């Protein structure tokens, strides 16, 4: 068969390969192992350095457009905190879905830890507009930025928030970020106010974050689904009790997602290599005279 004719195949055939490569590993889970990279290990170690009772902020800076990447990071980070007894203040700064992601992910993880008490072990302060303005103001007074929690309870009535007024009362911020908001935590909050920051960005923006990480403007980095799967593994290794959660049938985890990544990546690599083989074969062959 003429190789160049194969190059002209309908784009929908390529789509079918991608769809099949995605669906099959979801139906038949392979369970490939995940290795740990230094940026994720740094994030995990920084969290492990915290003591039970310490307070951190988890900022939901993503929406449905990147939830399959960011949500497993959020789940793993929250499970890590609650397993270790770290108290969590949840906020959202991303307008298009950040609030709902924060509400639903927190609800899901909290249900796995029946002993947790709202307002004592964790609190959801909800969403705020004007992300940079809110980030700056929180250095002076978090209570003025979030006068109520997500359901309208005055912040003064929340026991946990009586201990926390500014960034100085927090140990670090863990941002799950879809775009530029994660960068703001590094180049604004960390740079100007000194709060240590861990960012879990989408894979698309992860390469840029390496510059912040190298310059020590961030304490750790979870790049995309791979970063999330590594964090899941680290948390599971340290807190085996969480196996009860991650073994739930049908539960979407980043580690299971990496099975799919393996297959679809291989399909794409094969397509790219094949395209290049055809390209070079065509170049070598002398063109027929017109």
């Amino acid at each position: 068969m003429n190789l160049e004719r194969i190059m002209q195949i309908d784009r929908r055939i390529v789509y079918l390969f991608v769809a099949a490569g995605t669906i099959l590993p979801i139906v038949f889970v392979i369970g490939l192992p995940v290795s740990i990279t230094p940026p994720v290990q740094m994030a995990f170690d920084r969290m492990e350095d915290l003591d039970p009772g310490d307070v951190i902020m988890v900022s939901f800076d993503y929406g449905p457009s990147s939830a399959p990447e960011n949500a497993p990071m959020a789940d793993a980070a929250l499970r890590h905190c609650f397993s270790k007894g770290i108290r969590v203040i949840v906020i959202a700064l991303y307008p298009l879905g950040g609030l709902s992601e924060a509400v639903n992910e927190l609800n899901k993880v909290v249900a796995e830890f029946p002993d947790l008490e709202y307002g004592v072990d964790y609190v959801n302060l909800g969403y705020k507009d004007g992300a940079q303005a809110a980030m700056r103001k929180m250095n002076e007074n978090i209570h003025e930025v979030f006068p109520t929690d997500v359901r309208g309870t005055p912040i003064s009535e929340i026991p946990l928030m009586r201990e926390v007024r500014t960034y100085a009362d927090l140990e670090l911020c863990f941002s799950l970020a879809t775009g530029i908001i994660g960068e703001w935590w590094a180049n604004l909050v960390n740079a100007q106010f000194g709060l240590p920051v861990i960012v879990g960005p989408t894979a698309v923006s992860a390469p840029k974050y390496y510059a912040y990480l190298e310059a020590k403007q961030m304490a750790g980095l979870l790049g995309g689904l791979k970063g999330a799967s590594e964090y899941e593994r680290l948390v599971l290794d340290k807190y085996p009790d969480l196996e009860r959660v991650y073994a739930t049938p049908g539960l979407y985890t980043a580690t299971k997602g990496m099975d799919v990544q393996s297959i679809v990546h291989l399909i794409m690599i094969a397509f790219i290599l094949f395209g290049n083989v055809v390209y070079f074969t065509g170049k070598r062959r002398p063109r027929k005279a017109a």
Partner: protein
Amino acid sequence: MRKQVPLLLTFCAGMIPIVALFVPERHVSTVSTTLDSWLIIVAGFALLLGVVNVVQMNTNKIRRKTSGWPYAVVLLAGLAIMGTFGFAGAFGGFGGIATRLDGTSTPFDWLYQNAFLPLQGTMFALLAFFMASASYRAFRARNVEATILLIAALIVMFGRIPFGEMVTKWFPLTTEWIMAKPNMAAQRGIMIGAGLGAASMALRVIVGIERSYLGLGKGE
């Protein structure tokens, strides 16, 4: 007054956060943090500005019956449904916009989970297909630069998946080296260049050389 006052306001609003960083004095920080509080609110109003624009555009489309006007009706219906639950939620209607205390969904959250999330999620998921098709047809080692790009891409693609790690540990190690050294250096170069460019543009806005955002020309 219609031209000079906005320029003066831009200058003052722009200088306050800059001065506040260099002058750790109580009065300065009070002014700066008060402005922060205000801008949280103004940003909220600004976000809704887009809603007014879209409503205006789509009602005009329906009134003039331009091509595809029924889709404008669908858009406005979506806006009306979600907006009503959202606005009413601000006054405690329909249980607010988060979930209820018992964990059940409010109408706003239900719509988010079952309409907004799948729609936006799938919209972006389509990109995976387009990317596969485009790289099959166009990702070629045509010259030195394209070859470097292709090799780096293939190593990173292979090194970031469990299968690549199983083949040889050198794939993840090389990938991490690419990310942490040459990639980081290039990103840093871009960051420094773009940072200086953005800062000089900001300065032009603050001192009133750049006025196009106000709808004013250079000489006005």
